[in-house]
């Protein structure tokens, strides 16, 4: 029975944090006991394995699977921390045309029949073949954007393309928010982004230096209890599972913050 949820993580623009989001949501869902498969659809520019720290375990990849050089199960890499999290890595030596949307659909159906409850697809940037492949088998879409005009413009384009591909009601993650920049009105606020995109907000992830460090070490930040961004990802994972979790507040705490708010009149 195909009951697993197939969620494509996409953005249009590159560098907004699709891969980081995919890795962290996958990890967070796995820690909550879900059986999770991550698919790196960014063939030729594979990154998801790095963020997860699984690069050295790759033997077969997605192209090997669709070209029948190995069984699907052989290509799935089990996470070193979470046995219920697997990664289907992209091929690094090929390009997007190595896989067709039909093959993606077959592959996803196989994963669903293997009992994965969440299948997250890391979509490449752009709106070409790679995007079409990544969205082909998905039933839900999560759009990652940054609070800046170019990322929002591309996200808007993606929402339109997803609608055309019958992937309706995508949800939104605003990544890399800098609350203090929003306060002095040099950065778009989440409300500004939402006003333009007009889709359901799934989560807000603050810009966090901890992410740089954790990405480099291959340790998703959602494993870190202390990191604010990790907390944000865990909250998003809980919302994906249907829980009602309030959005994080990024108000400046402490006495100085309160005085500044009082003086500037910003709430």
């Amino acid at each position, binding site marked *: 029975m195909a009951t697993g949820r197939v969620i494509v993580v996409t953005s249009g623009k590159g560098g907004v944090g699709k891969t980081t989001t995919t890795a962290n949501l996958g990890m967070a869902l796995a820690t909550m006991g879900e059986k999770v498969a991550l698919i790196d659809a960014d063939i030729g520019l594979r990154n998801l394995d790095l963020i997860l720290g699984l690069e050295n375990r790759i033997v077969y990849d997605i192209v090997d699977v669709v070209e029948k050089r190995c069984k699907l199960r052989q290509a799935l890499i089990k996470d070193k921390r979470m046995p219920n999290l697997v990664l289907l890595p992209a091929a690094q030596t090929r390009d997007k045309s190595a896989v067709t949307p039909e093959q993606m659909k077959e592959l996803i159906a196989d994963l669903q029949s293997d009992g994965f409850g969440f299948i997250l697809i890391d979509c490449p940037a752009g709106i070409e073949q790679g995007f079409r492949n990544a969205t082909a088998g998905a039933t839900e879409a999560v759009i990652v954007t940054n609070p800046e005009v170019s990322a929002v*413009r*591309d996200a*808007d*384009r993606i*929402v*339109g*393309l997803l609608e055309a591909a019958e992937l309706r009601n995508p949800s939104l993650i605003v990544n890399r928010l800098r609350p203090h920049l929003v306060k002095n009105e040099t950065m778009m606020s989440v409300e500004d982004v939402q*006003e333009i995109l*007009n889709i359901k907000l799934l989560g807000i992830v603050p810009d966090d230096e901890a992410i740089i460090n954790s990405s480099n070490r291959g340790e998703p930040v959602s494993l870190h209890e202390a990191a604010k961004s990790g907390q944000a990802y865990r909250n998003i994972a809980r919302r994906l599972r249907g829980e009602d979790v309030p959005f994080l507040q990024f108000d400046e705490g402490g006495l100085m913050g309160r005085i500044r708010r009082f003086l500037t009149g910003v709430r």
Partner: protein
Amino acid sequence: MMKRQRKAPQAVTVEHEPEKQTVATPALPEPAANSESTASGVGAVEVGTSEVAEVVAAAEQATSLLRLKGWRGGLLLHLDAVAPWEEVLDALHDKLDAVRDFWAGATCTLDLGERATCPDGLGALPAQLEDRYGLSVVAVAAALPEVREAVAAAGIEALADLEPAVVRPEPAPPPPPPAPKYVKGTVRSGQIMEAEGHLIIMGDVNAGAELRAGGDIMVFGTLRGMAHAGAAGERGAVIVALNLRPTQLRIADLIARAPDGGQPPLSKHPERAEVRGQEIHIVAM
């Protein structure tokens, strides 16, 4: 080069073929290259259509025995079917003599209507027209079958009726205006909404999206993208939005863009963009 050709065709001709200067006819874009056609036709083969219309209109007014019309790229002569044949012929020659050389090289069709026979037979007429005016008779329309047979025997196309071509088509009633197009939802970057008539968007139009309508555009939401009203050239078209924050507005052939350095503060009222003079103006509603 284009300009010169249009203004002074002769000058251009002379440049290319100076030795044929005397042959060139100033009124024609191209000179008659061979002398035969120039001698017989005086180069008047390619008469402008407006000139034909003028002459035809004058002829139409002049007599009821005879009516001239432009038809199938040539001339159509309606000959009265009841009046004595001689009178008809006189009227015909009077008309054609007035501008004798004008018809040279043209083709013509004769419409005999109900006329059964003519005293000296039709046979002489085509040759006469050819000799005197350079008009060649290519077809004859006659209501009576025996006349048509005789015409066909003479080697001229015989037509039973001219109805479809002769009847001046009534000016067609203007087509009903196309129904307005109604779109519910957000029009997003990269999407284009087009309508032949008016276009109504119940939602936002984001930057990077395009609206194009033959008529007016109404956005019940925020217009951030590009909107082109009156796209077929209708300057009376307007663009209305609850929040008008477009990257660019176009009405007919005019273009207005958002000011550099950020949008002006948002109006509290819906706004309308319309053409005043040669500019697109935005007014509060």
